[in-house]
C-alpha cells in the first residue's frame, strides 16, 4: 500500500470520518452506517476507489460484481480502473433475460439475489463489492451465484463487528475491508468461511 505509516493508510481516517452513523435506521436499535456523506466529498470518494484499485489492479481480475444498490456506486469505478467488466447482482425481477437466483436468509424471511446467465465464465477471477458486510448473508448469496472457486476476493468499504453466522458452503474466501470498525482505521485482510 502506498504511504503507509505504521501500517496504516493515512487516507482511511478521512474516509472513516466521512461516513455518518444514523441511529435507529431502518429499525430501532440499529446504528446505520451511511456512506452517502462520503459520496459528497469528492476527494474522499476518490481515495476509496484508489485504495481498492491499488490493491487489485495487478491481480488479473476480469470481473467486478456489485451488489445492488450501494455496490453499484463503488464497483463500476473500480472495474473501469482495472479494465474489468462490471456485473450487477440484483434483487429479483430487475434483470431482463435469463438469470440464476440465490436465496438468502434475512432476520425475518428470505430474500434473493440474481445474476445474468453468461455474465461470468469458469476460471474467471472475480471481485465482489458492497459498501458494508454485516452477517455476510448477501455476500454468501453472491458467492454461490458466481459459483464455487470463482470468487477470489471480496472487498467492502466497511465491516461491522458482527460475527459471521453459521453459513453452509465451506468456501475459502479472502476478504478485504478498508475499514474494520468505527474505532480502528486499519486496512486488514482476513479469511472467512462461507
Amino acid at each position, binding site marked *: 500500500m502506498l504511504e503507509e505509516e505504521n501500517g496504516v493508510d493515512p487516507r482511511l481516517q478521512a474516509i472513516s470520518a466521512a461516513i455518518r452513523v444514523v441511529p435507529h435506521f431502518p429499525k430501532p436499535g440499529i446504528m446505520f452506517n451511511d456512506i*452517502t456523506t462520503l459520496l459528497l466529498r469528492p476527494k474522499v470518494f476518490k481515495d476509496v476507489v484508489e485504495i481498492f484499485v491499488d490493491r487489485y489492479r495487478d491481480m488479473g481480475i476480469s470481473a467486478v460484481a456489485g451488489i445492488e444498490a450501494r455496490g453499484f456506486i463503488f464497483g463500476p469505478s473500480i472495474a473501469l480502473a482495472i479494465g474489468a467488466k462490471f456485473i450487477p447482482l440484483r434483487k429479483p425481477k430487475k434483470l431482463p433475460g435469463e438469470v440464476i437466483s440465490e436465496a438468502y436468509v434475512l432476520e425475518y424471511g428470505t430474500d434473493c439475489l440474481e445474476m445474468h446467465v453468461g455474465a461470468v465464465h469458469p476460471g474467471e477471477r472475480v471481485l465482489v463489492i458492497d459498501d458494508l458486510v454485516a452477517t455476510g448473508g448477501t455476500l454468501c448469496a453472491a458467492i454461490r451465484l458466481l459459483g464455487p472457486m470463482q470468487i477470489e476476493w471480496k472487498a467492502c468499504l466497511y465491516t461491522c463487528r458482527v460475527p459471521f453466522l453459521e453459513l453452509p458452503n465451506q468456501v475459502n474466501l479472502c476478504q478485504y475491508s478498508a475499514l474494520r470498525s468505527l474505532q480502528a482505521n486499519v486496512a486488514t485482510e482476513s479469511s472467512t468461511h462461507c
Partner: protein
Amino acid sequence: MSACKDKEQDPRIEGIASTIRVVPDFPKPGIMFQDITTLLLDPKAFKNTVDLFVERYTGKDITVVAGIEARGFIFGPPIALAIGAKFVPLRKPRKLPGEVISEEYVLEYGTDCLQMHIGAVQPGDRALVVDDLIATGGTLCAAIKLLERAGAEVVECACVIELPELKAFYLHFSSAKCEVLDWDVVA
C-alpha cells in the same frame, strides 16, 4: 435536443450502441427492453460511454452528479469522480437514512416516489442528472424537481439511451410546466 445529431457522430458511439441488447417482452409483453448490462460486460465500451459524458461536462463547473436508482448509480459515480463533483443518489422510498425530501411521479398504473437527502445539495450547486435511459421522462422530471427544490441549478440530464416515447414526453412536460433545459443523448 441531442447534441450528437448536430454534428458527425463520435466514432465511439457505434461500438457502444452495438453492445446494448434488446430483450423483448420485459418487464411486460410488448415492451422491448434496452439492457445496458451487456455494455457493462465490455470494458472498452463502458469506458467510452463514461468518457463521452466526462468530455462533455468537464470544465462546466458541475458540482453535483445525481444518479437515479439503480442504473444511474452505475454511470453517475464514474462521471462524478472524473469531473470532481459530489455524487448524490436519488432513491426509492425508505432507502435513504436520515432526513429526506420526496417527489412523487406518475407511472402507467399508480405513482412512485423519488427521495433525496436533505443537505446533499445546496443553493448554487450546478447539477447533472444521470440515468441509463429516458423514456417518458417521469423519473427525470421528479429528479429535476428534487434538485431544484434544494436550490440547485440542473444544467443537463445525461442518459445513455433515449426512447421514441420522448416525443410524447415533451408534450406532457410542457403542459406540466416542468422545466427542462436540455437532453443529452449518446445513442
